[in-house]
């Protein structure tokens, strides 16, 4: 900082001394106001409405007017035949999405980072980012077209390679739902999710590469001893954030891929909340199921965060 500016900074502006504090900041308050109102109404408003999960919803009395019933609706969910299937389906999809989907962008970033030609690198990046902009509706339509049992290109390819039986309908068979869901998710967002790792890799000091070379490291060892350690903090932060969403399996995609043939594996907690809560107007029951989902997510986030803090001193908060 230049000395002149420093001197200015120390002296309060003439005649404005009394405005320190709230009054001087009224413009800043006005600027945060729209956001504060939005968050208060549309985020904390529904949180206030969570009490619905502990009340009997009464149409005439509105959101918070029903009688307290305690944990009745949680009991109802835990004892319903849909409890285990919805919980299991949500976990299975989330588990495979993280285990298979999380490392892929890291690998892609390492590969992109190793491409030498600038234009080749750009071309690959532009291409792999693209599917991220496709809407879920179009993605599911693409799946239906490419996996169609009679005319689908991918279906034909898999059949030719003898990877699937001849007459299978991949979108209608329960066994194929999770693989199709996870693989298409990787196809859609692997490129986009790699951006953050590519950016982290580009900030690695080139001297580190040179030093590793002089020590006789080959390219594989550089990946392992230079590049991975450099992006490890980013990896851990993102992993924590992903853990916090472990049960928020994408509603849109599951809902759109769901059909009567695969419902045994595709009914997850969020689609269940929609089906019983919104469509069948069981508002209190739906709120309870939704709250259960949110709480489990939050628990996972806290656990992952605490674990990472202990092991590596990296955490969100």
């Amino acid at each position, binding site marked *: 900082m230049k000395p002149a500016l420093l001197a200015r900074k120390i002296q309060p502006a003439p005649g404005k001394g009394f405005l320190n504090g709230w009054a001087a900041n009224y413009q800043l308050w006005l600027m945060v106001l729209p956001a504060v109102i939005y968050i208060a109404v549309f985020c904390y408003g529904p949180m206030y*409405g969570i009490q619905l999960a502990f009340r009997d919803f009464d149409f005439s009395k509105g959101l918070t007017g029903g009688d307290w019933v305690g944990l009745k609706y949680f009991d109802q969910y835990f004892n319903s035949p849909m409890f285990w299937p919805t919980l299991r389906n949500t976990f299975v999809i989330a588990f495979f999405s993280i285990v298979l989907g999380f490392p892929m962008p890291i690998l892609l970033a390492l*590969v992109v980072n190793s491409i030498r030609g600038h234009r080749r690198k750009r071309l690959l990046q532009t291409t792999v980012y693209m599917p991220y902009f496709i*809407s*879920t509706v179009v993605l599911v339509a693409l799946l239906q077209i490419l996996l169609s049992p009679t005319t689908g290109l991918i279906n034909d390819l898999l059949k030719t390679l003898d990877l699937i039986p001849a007459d299978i309908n991949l979108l209608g068979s329960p066994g194929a739902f999770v693989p199709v869901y996870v693989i298409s998710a990787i196809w859609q967002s692997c*490129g986009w999710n790699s951006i953050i790792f590519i950016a982290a890799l580009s900030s690695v000091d080139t001297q580190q590469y040179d030093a590793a*070379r002089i020590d006789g490291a080959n390219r594989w060892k550089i990946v392992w001893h230079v590049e991975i350690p450099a992006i490890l903090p980013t990896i851990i932060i993102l992993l924590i954030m992903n853990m916090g969403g472990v049960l928020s399996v994408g509603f849109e995609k599951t809902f759109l891929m769901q059909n009567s043939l695969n419902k045994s594996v595709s009914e997850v907690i969020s689609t269940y909340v929609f089906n019983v809560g919104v469509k069948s107007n069981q508002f209190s029951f739906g709120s309870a199921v939704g709250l259960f989902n949110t709480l489990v997510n939050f628990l996972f986030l806290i656990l992952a965060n605490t674990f990472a803090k202990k092991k590596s001193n990296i955490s969100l908060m």
Partner: protein
Amino acid sequence: MTRNKVETSHAIVSSGSLADRLYTAVVVVVSIVAFIVVAYPLYFIVIASFSNSTMVNQGQVILWPKDINFYGYEQIFKDTRIWQGYLNTVIYTVLGTLLNLIVTLPCAYALAHKKFKARRIIMPLFVFTMYFGGGMIPTYLLIRDLHLLNTPWIMIVNGALSVFNLIITRTFFESSIPEELYEAAVLDGCSHFRYFISVVIPLSKAVISVISLYYMVGHWNDFFSALLYINSDELQPLQIILRNILLSNQAFAGGAGSGAGAGAGSYAQQFADQIKYAVIIVSTVPVLIIYPFLQKYFEKGVMIGAVKG
């Protein structure tokens, strides 16, 4: 690691040990495979959209379009449902993104000010909503009680602030706009409003592009809000119309959600596929056109958000 100096210098000069060459080979193979796996399905939809659909279904259209015709596109042009949906989506996207910017940018500016003490309370309260929320039903009932159900307003107001984008923007303001600039401006009698509009905004094109794109794509592809909050046909956005055309006329599709407009199979079945390809193109092209222009800002914008996220 101590190695023979002669050996290492040799390795640098030729830079071609077996392991290194293997690494290069793996990189080349993986990037080619990744390129094809992503690009080919997109390319296929494009060529299939103006090829003879019978030949497409027989698997004859693989690399080049065959028997070129634009039947699918012609049908779409005549389809008022699609244009109504398109118009609605354009309105929701333009107004929604404007509102997003009006809410996000000033807020990020204020929260970037260290002297604004309230940020220590506001920020955690905002971030908390990223990980905890009321859930689908309480939100739905709240919007019903606010009389926003089945109005265009909910499509515009919903998601007016994304905390993630707020963090990206705030971090950009903190790290890229020097504080001295503000100190100097204040001495010249500049208010926060003036400074924000005539200094901060012009200096922040990169981050504004990035969050505009995020918000825009979010509005354009939003299916969930309309599914939950909109009933009237004339208010439906493009994604709902797309669902009805693309998915609901499949024999097994829809499952739980084929209620809204299952009468979509109004096209003769042999042309249905070609229309689908064309619909996919027409609905996705606007987003894909905008994005390469903004791509140069992505890595910067995303990285900024990630560091402090």
